[in-house]
């Protein structure tokens, strides 16, 4: 495939994709891509030179015939540049050097395609077109030597599959990088501990709790208890959709650790589904003090702290209960 947007290549070099010489060797070995194949492809270079022009023209005619792929080549100037680069790649397929430099080039091109959001299905479809175009040219050229035509095509196929593998790696790498970044973001957002009154902390927990996050939550909570001299903590789990035995265990550990530091934890916001699930799982939360909702939890916490909230209006309406 061609460099579609060389302008952005400078900053996309996928140096983090770990494909070293050994890995390349292993992949070639698995494809049974041998020295003979490299030689065979190299011997086709002359033929490739003569056919490059028409093959590329066919290739872009095909690509422009589909609106999904046409969208990437709206600008005629870009199309010209891309055709030139595509031709370079086409010739490179038969230049006999398929080592680190070749691989790095493939990875870079794959990354460019990933970044412009060209789906792998079109990318692979284009390779398919290439193979068929090369096949029919070889058949034409070696009309009297069908065996040679077929062997050449097989060599070409091995190389193309190596290229496809590298292209897919760039896609997977980009997806994984995105996932890592999002997980990092979730982790950073995940553990606020807020003081809402003197000696009263609020710990709202939202989303999925795994072992790592549970540890972070507990550590943040304990540090906050120390620095705020908290006596009561309201842990609100309204935003936790499911609680299984592992998550429940993490929460129990947080509660127990907070208690060791002299703080009482009140758990609020256990939904009816979660409550029933906990009962079914046989998880004993009887040692944890629970209140239905956050408001109730804060009121209970105020009671524990010996505080009482009164309405400030001066008429003699009765104070708000609670």
């Amino acid at each position: 495939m061609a460099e579609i947007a060389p302008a952005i290549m400078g900053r996309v070099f996928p140096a983090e994709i770990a494909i070293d010489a050994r890995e390349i060797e292993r992949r070639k070995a698995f494809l049974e891509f041998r020295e003979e194949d490299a030689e065979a492809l190299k011997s086709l270079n002359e033929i490739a030179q003569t056919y490059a022009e028409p093959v590329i023209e066919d290739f872009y005619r095909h690509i422009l015939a589909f609106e999904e792929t046409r969208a990437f080549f709206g600008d005629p100037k870009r199309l010209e540049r891309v055709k030139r680069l595509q031709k370079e790649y086409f010739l490179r397929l038969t230049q006999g050097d398929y080592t680190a430099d070749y691989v790095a080039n493939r990875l870079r091109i794959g990354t460019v395609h990933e970044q412009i959001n060209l789906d792998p299905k079109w990318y692979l479809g284009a390779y398919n077109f290439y193979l068929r175009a090369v096949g029919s040219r070889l058949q034409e050229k070696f009309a009297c030597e069908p065996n040679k035509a077929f062997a050449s095509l097989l060599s070409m196929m091995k190389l193309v599959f190596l290229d496809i593998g590298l292209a897919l790696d760039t896609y997977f790498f980009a997806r994984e990088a995105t996932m890592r970044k999002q997980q990092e973001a979730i982790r950073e957002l995940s553990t606020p501990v807020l003081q809402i009154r003197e000696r009263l902390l609020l710990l709202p927990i939202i989303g999925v709790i795994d072992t790592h996050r549970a540890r972070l939550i507990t550590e943040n909570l304990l540090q906050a208890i120390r620095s705020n001299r908290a006596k009561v903590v309201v842990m609100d789990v309204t935003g936790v959709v499911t609680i299984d035995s592992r998550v429940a265990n993490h929460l129990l550990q947080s509660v127990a650790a907070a208690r060791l530091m002299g703080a009482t934890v009140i758990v609020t916001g256990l939904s009816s589904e979660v409550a029933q699930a906990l009962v079914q799982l046989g998880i004993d939360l009887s040692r944890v003090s629970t209140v239905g909702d956050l408001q109730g939890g804060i009121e209970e916490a105020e009671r524990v702290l010996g505080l009482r909230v009164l309405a400030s209006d001066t008429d003699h309406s009765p104070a708000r209960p609670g």
Partner: protein
Amino acid sequence: MPVPVLKQGDVLIASVQAALSDKDLAQLREDLADRVGRYRARGVIIDVAALDVLDSFAARTVRGIAYSTRLRGARTVVVGIQPDVAYAMVQLGLSLDDIATALDVEEGLALLRTTA
């Protein structure tokens, strides 16, 4: 190194300064059980703020102290457990469920006052 025990009104304060050997712990248990009777103490505070680890033997001894002083008529509060220590203890399953805890000595004294 033995643990110094201070008397503050009717409360005894044992302030653990350094990591304790098993022998020191046993000594502390005896000291406290003895002094609770001698000073007619109502409460015992064990301050472990200086410790960066509390193992299962220490936890068991602390529980033993709490039980024996209760039998002698005094309530025990463990104070000053550090965040890291608390987390490690919970991981080890040492949650001291039946023992009163407080943030520091001041809080411990307040707790003993309110539950007099």
